[in-house]
């Protein structure tokens, strides 16, 4: 009897294992074919166009990359993108910290309403928010300014920051805090030895999410930033929406995509908790 069930179980394991392997292959094709095509398009040599029915480009070169860096505003856009993103993340952190503490550790009426309201910037239709936020920004004199860009990007990223930080605050066991208090820890010592070490991974995750949200932000930047400021996404849009220039779009796509993926893989590796589910799962 035991032997038979064991046999069945083993068979089952092999079946599910091979099914998983099969799905992994499908998934690899599903994800990496599009990415590979972007890489190929970015390497097409201008003198040897890649056209139907060639399956692959005849000659590969870095000419498209050189062209994008020489003749478009990509360097300035990169500077804007990568200077707005850390500022937006920092601002989001400063603003989110007290709110996340209260949401994570206190019970009060209307808590669930507030934690849902916080998600509005990422749930609401982005273009509508962007368009009419731009009117509000105009009234406040923030449209077409660098500060406006930082505030706008912060607004789009802060929901992740608050959600993730409050999850980390909530996960600190009360015992630890009580123990620290019993041992005579003051407010600063509690912060230094209990809160900071326990919240640090969440802070790291929240910062990465806000940073990436800012790097990707298109709608708001397009409305309140153009034409004064260009970021990498708005440059990409100019190659996709106005004039479809496939080779340039391929180069800019890779510039936009690769750092994001590396950062997120790094973040996932460094952190044990699944912060992505923590921030989005329980909506």
């Amino acid at each position: 009897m035991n032997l038979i069930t064991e046999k069945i179980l083993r068979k089952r394991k092999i079946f599910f294992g091979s099914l998983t392997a099969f799905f992994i292959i499908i998934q690899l094709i599903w994800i990496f074919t599009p990415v590979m095509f972007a890489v190929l398009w970015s390497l097409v040599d201008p003198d040897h166009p890649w056209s139907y029915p060639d399956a692959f480009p005849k000659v590969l070169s870095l000419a498209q990359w050189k062209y994008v860096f020489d003749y478009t505003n990509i360097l300035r856009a990169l500077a804007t993108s990568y200077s707005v993103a850390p500022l937006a993340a920092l601002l989001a952190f400063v603003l989110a910290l007290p709110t996340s503490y209260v949401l994570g550790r206190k019970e009060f009426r209307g808590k669930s309403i507030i934690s849902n309201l916080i998600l509005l910037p990422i749930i609401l239709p982005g273009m509508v928010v962007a368009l009419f936020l731009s009117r509000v920004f105009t009234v406040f004199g923030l449209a077409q300014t660098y500060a406006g860009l930082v505030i706008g990007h912060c607004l789009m990223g802060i929901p992740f920051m608050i959600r993730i930080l409050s999850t980390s605050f909530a996960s600190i066991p009360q015992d630890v805090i009580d123990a620290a208090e019993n041992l005579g820890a003051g407010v600063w010592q509690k912060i230094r030895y209990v809160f900071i070490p326990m919240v640090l991974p969440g802070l790291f995750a929240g910062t990465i999410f806000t940073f990436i949200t800012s790097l990707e932000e298109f709608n708001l930047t397009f409305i309140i930033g153009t034409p004064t400021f260009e970021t990498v996404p708005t440059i990409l849009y100019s190659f996709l929406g106005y004039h479809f220039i496939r080779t340039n779009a391929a180069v800019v796509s890779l510039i936009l995509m690769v750092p994001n993926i590396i950062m997120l893989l790094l973040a996932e590796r460094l952190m044990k908790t699944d912060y992505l589910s923590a921030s989005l799962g329980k909506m």
Partner: protein
Amino acid sequence: MFRKPVSEKMSNFLFLIPGAGFIFIFLSFAFILTILQSFGLFSLIGESRFTFKYWKIIFEQEFIDSFLFSLKIGIGSAFGTLLFSYPIALFLRKKGFGKKTLGSLIKIPLFIPALVVAFLIVNLISFHGLLNTVLVALGVIKEPLRLLNDQFGWGVLFIQVWKNIPFQLLIISSSLAVIRDDLEDAAMNLGANKFQVIFRIIIPLSIPGILVAVILVFIMTFGDFAITKIAGPVYPNSMSVRMLTEAMIFQEWNRAAVMGVIIMSTALIFVAFYSKIAKVIQENKL
């Protein structure tokens, strides 16, 4: 329980101001301004006078076409994505060899910006793209299919599904994770087979998660701008594309505001619908 001292309530409130207040102030200003402008008030440029005339836009054929197109894309993407994400979530529910790797692979599109996703998929489905080339070579179709900027919006749907599978998967997985194994074991002990367990226990218990996943994807795709602009048909435009054209090109901000109010309220109606259903489910369950 004793009543909380006033000072704690006060400090909670003060602590909420920087984060929640920041979001609330900007969004509510944007909301109020949109609603006021849709009735001709606070126009910032031109005359400001209370009027319903901008709301007549909803009787224009172009508007109706855009609305129906966006609705079609929204509903199509939400359920089209579910078709993939739910079975995957079921498959990944139990731990197994290699499933962690599979899970992280599936998540990758979540980390790719929407514009890049649009570009990646455009390469595949364009007239002489990989998909058409392969299908023609295999003899499935004679002529390449027009999938990009096509009248129906297949290109947009394809991009939205590719992009949103991991997002829905995340939400559905966390709603499946809270279903306790005891229930499943009990049903199995009482003689239920695998399919009965899935259809009688797991699916009913995960309906709230499914609803959230479907509604969030609907809202995002209904109000989408960039992907429709890149891969959508020349006519009709999506609601957001039309709204932006009105505002930025024709400077008809009041008309744009009407469209903004309609996009927002459609989103909110679906959310309200969700909370109603979720409530009914919760009351009937226990």
